[in-house]
C-alpha cells in the first residue's frame, strides 16, 4: 500500500507539471469536442492526431490521447440528450432516455447526472487501474513467448466474439488485418514480403495510414452521405444540478454501471461501447419500473454513462500491463507508444514509471476538468453543434493530409492513407467493422514475433503452446469462446444484447 501511495505521488508530480496539465486539458477539450460532434469518434480523432504526438514527449502524448478517449465519453452524452444523435457510439443508449428527459424539460438534470455519473465512474475505475495494474504486470513479467502468443490469440478471438455486428465479417477483418501486418521485411531472414518491389512498402504498411484511412477518411466520406439534420432540442439548458430525488434514483444505477463497466472494460473486445449497452440492459432488468425505460428514466442515463466511462478507463489495464489492446482505441495507443519507441508491455511500469503513473494520475485530473467543461460550459458545446459539416470536414481532411505527410515527408503515405480511406468506405458500405482489422494489424506482427521466438526456443516443437499451463489455459478459453459463439442460442443472445438496449 505504501508503494502504491508513493507511486501515485510520483504520478501526480508528473501529471501536475504545467506541460502535462496543458496536454491533459487539450485532450479532454478535444475529446469533448469530438464527442459532441456527431460523426467523428475518438478512434478517428486519435488516428488523426497520431502524427502530432510524434513531436511530443511520450508521457504528454499518451496523457493527451487518453484524455481524448475518456473525454469523448463525456461529450457524447450531450448530443444524445439534446438532439437525439449520439456523438459517440457508446452514447447510443443514452439517447433513449436522455432525449425523452430533454423533451420533458429535464435536459439539465439529464446532462448533470450524466456528468456526475461519468465523474464517479472515471474516478473509481482510475482507483481500480492503480490497484490492479501493478500485480497484473508482475504476473505478465513471468510470461514467455508461448504465453504471449496464446494471450494474443485469446485477445483476437474475444475481440471478435464481443464485437458488434456479423461474426463472420469480424473474423474476416481480423484475418485481413493479420495479412496486412505481414507486409514488410521479415525480421529474421531480411526478405521483403508482399512489397511487390515498392521500396516504400519494405518497412511495412504505415500504421498511421491504415488507422487514419479506415477510421478518419472513411468515416468522413460516409458522413457526407448522411443528410445533415441537427435541431438542437433545448436551446437554453437550465437546472443542470440534479435534485436530491434524482441523485437518490441514480445512485444505485451509477454504482452498478461503474462495476459492470469496469469489468467489461478489462475484457478483450470490451470497452466503452459494450459496457454502455450491457449496463442499460442490466438496469432495465433490475429496475422495479422497467416500463419507464425509454420514456425518460434517469437511471437509463446514469447507468450507461457511468459504464461507458468506467469501461473506457479500465480498458487501459490490458494495454498497460500486458501490452495487449482490448479495443481499437487501445490499438491506436499502442501505435502511439511504438511511434515513440516504447515497447508496450509490463516492462513499461518498471522502466517508465513516470509514464505509467503519470497517465493514471492524469485521469483523475482529466475527469475533474471534464465535469467543469461539461456542466457550467455546456452552452458553449451547444453552440458548437451549429457548425456546418461542409466547413468542418474539409478542414479535418486538410489537417489529416498535412499530419500524414509530416510523418516522413513522403507523398506516398498520403496516397496510401487516401487508398485506405476509399477501401474503408467500401467496408462501411459492406457493413464490415474496421475495428477487428486494426486489432489484427497491430497484434499480427507481435503474434508472429512471439510465435517464432517460442518455436525457436522449443526447437520447432509446436506442442510448446500446449505444454505450458498458462498458454494451454488461454488457448482452451479461446477455443471455448469460439465454440460457444457458433452455438445458435448464444449467437442469438449476442445479437440481442446490442439490439435490446
Amino acid at each position: 500500500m505504501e508503494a502504491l501511495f508513493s507511486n501515485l505521488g510520483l504520478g501526480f508530480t508528473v501529471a501536475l507539471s504545467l506541460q502535462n496539465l496543458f496536454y491533459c486539458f487539450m485532450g479532454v477539450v478535444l475529446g469533448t469536442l469530438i464527442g459532441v460532434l456527431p460523426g467523428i469518434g475518438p478512434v478517428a480523432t486519435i488516428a488523426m492526431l497520431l502524427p502530432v504526438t510524434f513531436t511530443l514527449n511520450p508521457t504528454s502524448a499518451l496523457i493527451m490521447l487518453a484524455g481524448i478517449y475518456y473525454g469523448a465519453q463525456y461529450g457524447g452524452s450531450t448530443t444524445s440528450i439534446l438532439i437525439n444523435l449520439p456523438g459517440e457510439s457508446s452514447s447510443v443508449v443514452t439517447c433513449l432516455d436522455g432525449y425523452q428527459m430533454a423533451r420533458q424539460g429535464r435536459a439539465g438534470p439529464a446532462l448533470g447526472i450524466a456528468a456526475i455519473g461519468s465523474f464517479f465512474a472515471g474516478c473509481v475505475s482510475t482507483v481500480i487501474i492503480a490497484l490492479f495494474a501493478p500485480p497484473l504486470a508482475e504476473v505478465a513479467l513471468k510470461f514467455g513467448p508461448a504465453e504471449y502468443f496464446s494471450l494474443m490469440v485469446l485477445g483476437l478471438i474475444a475481440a471478435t466474439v464481443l464485437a458488434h455486428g456479423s461474426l463472420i465479417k469480424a473474423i474476416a477483418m481480423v484475418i485481413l488485418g493479420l495479412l496486412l501486418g505481414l507486409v514488410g521485411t521479415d525480421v529474421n531472414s531480411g526478405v521483403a514480403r508482399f512489397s511487390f518491389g515498392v521500396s516504400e512498402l519494405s518497412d511495412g504498411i504505415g500504421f498511421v495510414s491504415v488507422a487514419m484511412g479506415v477510421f478518419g477518411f472513411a468515416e468522413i466520406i460516409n458522413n457526407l452521405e448522411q443528410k445533415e439534420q441537427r435541431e438542437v432540442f433545448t436551446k437554453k439548458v437550465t437546472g443542470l444540478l440534479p435534485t436530491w430525488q434524482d441523485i437518490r434514483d441514480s445512485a444505485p444505477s451509477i454504482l452498478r454501471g461503474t462495476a459492470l463497466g469496469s469489468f467489461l472494460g478489462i475484457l478483450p473486445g470490451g470497452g466503452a461501447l459494450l459496457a454502455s449497452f450491457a449496463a442499460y440492459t442490466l438496469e432495465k432488468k433490475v429496475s422495479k419500473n422497467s416500463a419507464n425505460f425509454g420514456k425518460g428514466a434517469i437511471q437509463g442515463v446514469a447507468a450507461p454513462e457511468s459504464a461507458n466511462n468506467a469501461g473506457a478507463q479500465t480498458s487501459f489495464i490490458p494495454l498497460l500491463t500486458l501490452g495487449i489492446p482490448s479495443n481499437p482505441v487501445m490499438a491506436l495507443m499502442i501505435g502511439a507508444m511504438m511511434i515513440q519507441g516504447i515497447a508496450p508491455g509490463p516492462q513499461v511500469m518498471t522502466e517508465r514509471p513516470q509514464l505509467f503513473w503519470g497517465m493514471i494520475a492524469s485521469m483523475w485530473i482529466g475527469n475533474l476538468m471534464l465535469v467543469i467543461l461539461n456542466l457550467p460550459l455546456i452552452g458553449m458545446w451547444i453552440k458548437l453543434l451549429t457548425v456546418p459539416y461542409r466547413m468542418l470536414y474539409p478542414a479535418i481532411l486538410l489537417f489529416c493530409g498535412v499530419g500524414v505527410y509530416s510523418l516522413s515527408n513522403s507523398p506516398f503515405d498520403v496516397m496510401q492513407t487516401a487508398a485506405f480511406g476509399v477501401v474503408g468506405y467500401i467496408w462501411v458500405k459492406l457493413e464490415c467493422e474496421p475495428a477487428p482489422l486494426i486489432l489484427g494489424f497491430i497484434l499480427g506482427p507481435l503474434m508472429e514475433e512471439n510465435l517464432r521466438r517460442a518455436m525457436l526456443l522449443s526447437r520447432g516443437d509446436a506442442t510448446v503452446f500446449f505444454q505450458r499451463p498458462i498458454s494451454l489455459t488461454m488457448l482452451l478459453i479461446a477455443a471455448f469462446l469460439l465454440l460457444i459463439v457458433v452455438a445458435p442460442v448464444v449467437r442469438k443472445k449476442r445479437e440481442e444484447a446490442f439490439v435490446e438496449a
Partner: protein
Amino acid sequence: MGKLIRHQVFMILAIGFICVAIFPLVFIYCTSLLIQSAVSKQTAAKIDKFWDTIGKPYDYLIKAIE
C-alpha cells in the same frame, strides 16, 4: 455580466461539492438500500425519511444557485 460570473462561480463550487460528496453518498446510500430490503417495512420507512431530511438542505441550495 457580474451576475453571470457569480452564477458560474457558485455553479462550479456546487459541482465541486457534489463531486466530493458523491463518493461516500453512492456507497452509503446503496448500503442503506440493501439494509432497507432486509428490515421491516416500518424501519425501512424510517430510513427513507432520514434520507429525505438529509436532502432538504441540498434542494434549497440547488434552488438558490439555479
